[in-house]
């Protein structure tokens, strides 16, 4: 059962976001930690009311970027403007209209659910008269009401994240920064979290979410693909998929022969990249229509008849790999600092 849709409670929906104004603007943002360049000349902008993604694996610089935007980390170089305020010069100025949910929970494990919520409400000076209504709404989203007196440390992972998100939302921020909110969370809670996020966006809140899950990348209005502190690409999911050089043909081969088939496929002309998924190969070729049949025939000729073959939509992972640009086997620099 999904949580009750929040809009049916009659709560006010903010006026349609003025999409031409940037809620966040980052220019040549750089942050070093000793030798390590965590964020390297990153530039991007987030429009008001947008659902924006920072997508990349660990070490990409997502957390560092979000921390700078939240005003808890100073940039080494570059500019970060959040809600019109230069965060490096005036970190405190923006905190009232912003909410940041850090990766390692901002929850107090030794306080109860309701105590955590009240604490954040106090910190942001939420007027007492409004608290009951806001708490009611947040409890409906999160389903946490039956646990209001439970210690936060005793909640499951998914519930902790929902509590964290509720604490972030209690003061109705205009900008929401979420650092890997769904990491390791069970699929049902993950779904609930995303519903809450979408609801916030519908109300005009600007939401920036960082994630290492490539499949979540599909959800964003726009996303920035980051790798080792650098921006690889920034666009809508559809545009990123269209921007993939070539198309992907999924071919199923006989069980247990996928690896051998892969090695053979690499030698086939037109095949740019091959990846194995169980007993299926994903072949990146120029055009499925034009080259597909030839490739399948070549595979059959090499001793790997295809049980099925069909063009498939590239996944965000395919796009990411394409953008990293290297041959699918290499991983970039050997050391963390990119040497």
């Amino acid at each position, binding site marked *: 059962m999904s949580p009750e*849709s929040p*809009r049916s409670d009659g709560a006010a929906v903010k006026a349609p976001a003025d999409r031409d104004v940037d809620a966040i603007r980052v220019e040549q943002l750089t942050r070093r930690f000793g030798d390590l360049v965590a964020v390297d000349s990153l530039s991007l902008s987030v429009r008001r009311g947008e659902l924006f993604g920072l997508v990349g694996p*660990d070490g990409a610089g997502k957390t560092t970027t979000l921390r700078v935007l939240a005003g808890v980390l100073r940039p080494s170089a570059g500019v970060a403007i959040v809600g019109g305020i230069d965060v490096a010069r005036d970190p405190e100025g923006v905190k009232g209209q912003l909410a940041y949910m850090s990766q390692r929970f901002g929850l107090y494990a030794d306080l109860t659910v309701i105590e955590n919520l009240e604490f954040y409400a106090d910190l942001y000076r939420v007027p007492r008269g409004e608290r009951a209504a806001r708490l009611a709404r947040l409890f409906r989203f999160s389903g946490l009401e039956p646990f209001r007196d439970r210690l936060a440390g005793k909640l499951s992972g*998914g519930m902790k994240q929902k509590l964290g998100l509720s604490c972030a939302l209690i003061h109705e921020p205009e900008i929401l920064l979420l650092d890997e909110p769904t990491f390791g969370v069970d*699929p*049902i*809670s993950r779904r609930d979290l995303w519903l809450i996020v979408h609801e916030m966006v519908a109300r005009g809140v600007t939401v920036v979410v960082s994630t290492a899950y490539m499949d979540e990348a599909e*959800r964003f209005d726009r996303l920035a693909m980051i790798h080792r502190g650098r921006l690889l690409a920034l666009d809508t999911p559809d545009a990123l998929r269209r921007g993939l050089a070539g198309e992907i043909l999924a071919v199923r081969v006989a069980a247990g022969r996928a690896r051998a088939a892969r090695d053979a496929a690499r030698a086939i002309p037109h095949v740019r990249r091959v990846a*194995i998924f*169980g007993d299926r190969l994903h072949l990146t070729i120029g055009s499925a229509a034009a080259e597909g049949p030839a490739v399948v025939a070549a595979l059959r000729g090499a001793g790997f008849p295809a049980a099925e073959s069909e063009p498939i939509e590239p996944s965000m992972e395919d796009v990411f790999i394409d953008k990293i640009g290297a041959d699918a086997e290499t991983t970039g620099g050997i050391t963390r600092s990119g040497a």
Partner: protein
Amino acid sequence: MSGPGGIDPTAEVNDRAVVVEDLTRRFGSFVAVDHVTFDVRRGEVFGFLGPNGAGKTTTIRILAGLLVPTSGRGTVAGFDITRDTEAIKRNIGYMSQLFSLYNDLTVEENIRFFSGLYGVPRERREARRDWVLEIARLEGERRRVTGELSLGYKQRLALGCAVLHEPPVLFLDEPTSGVDPISRRSFWDLIYHLAGEGTTVFVTTHYMEEAEYCNRLALMNRGRLIALDAPERLRAGMREPLLQIRTNASARVVEALEKTPEVIEVGMFGRAVHATVRDLSRGRDAVHAALDSRAIPYESIEEIPPSLEDVFISRVHEEGGAPDE
């Protein structure tokens, strides 16, 4: 097999690298692993998929001989998990979630250390060391301090070190957590290579997309095994069809479909909405009706193959929709 889990009686006894029956582990009143039963065949790449706290790490620790079950039976590489834990440790490779490499030792020193630890015979050590350096692509980096390596390389090295003694069974606990997609793919390449040589590989993960790489998959939730099959069969076995509605008005679509009885689950995915329905044709009609009657615009409604996440949620509901704790 009836229901999730279970042992395939037709498999040869010594074909089974791992067998567990009714495996249970409690910590005080908390049941971390709840009567789990399954088996893993030799040379298989077996995946254990589930969110954090599902019991994956606890299970793998029991199988690796690090933890004794509260009840239940099992064998790993033929050795009993309660009585022969030391024998198990000699016959398996284990890569824990938190890494086992020493960051302040060099690559070569780490390899040497683990060679000694796993009792690799002296005459084999040099060959094995070279093999690890090769598969980890660190041939020129033997004197590099391990802490300086990037995550992808560290993981390959850790994997190499875990199989220095050429064990028949390999346990990997969340081996690619946080790693970039290219590194992940090449890591899995390595896993396939080992499996091809006869090593049984047991992997836990919470990345749904990684689960696709496995030959067979066990879905875990709150300590219980809720599904066990090959990934494609899990998806095919999902009784409820999944519809994708492409639209610019996702929020309104969601709201409308939540009120539609034929629709069991609704999820928003950016410019698309996924709806799980009971029956394909009735469901499709119902969705059309629901959206048209409210004049909600959409571009298309089509059936799409379910993702493992959809399968997961569906199975959880089937189990009685365990209430969120």
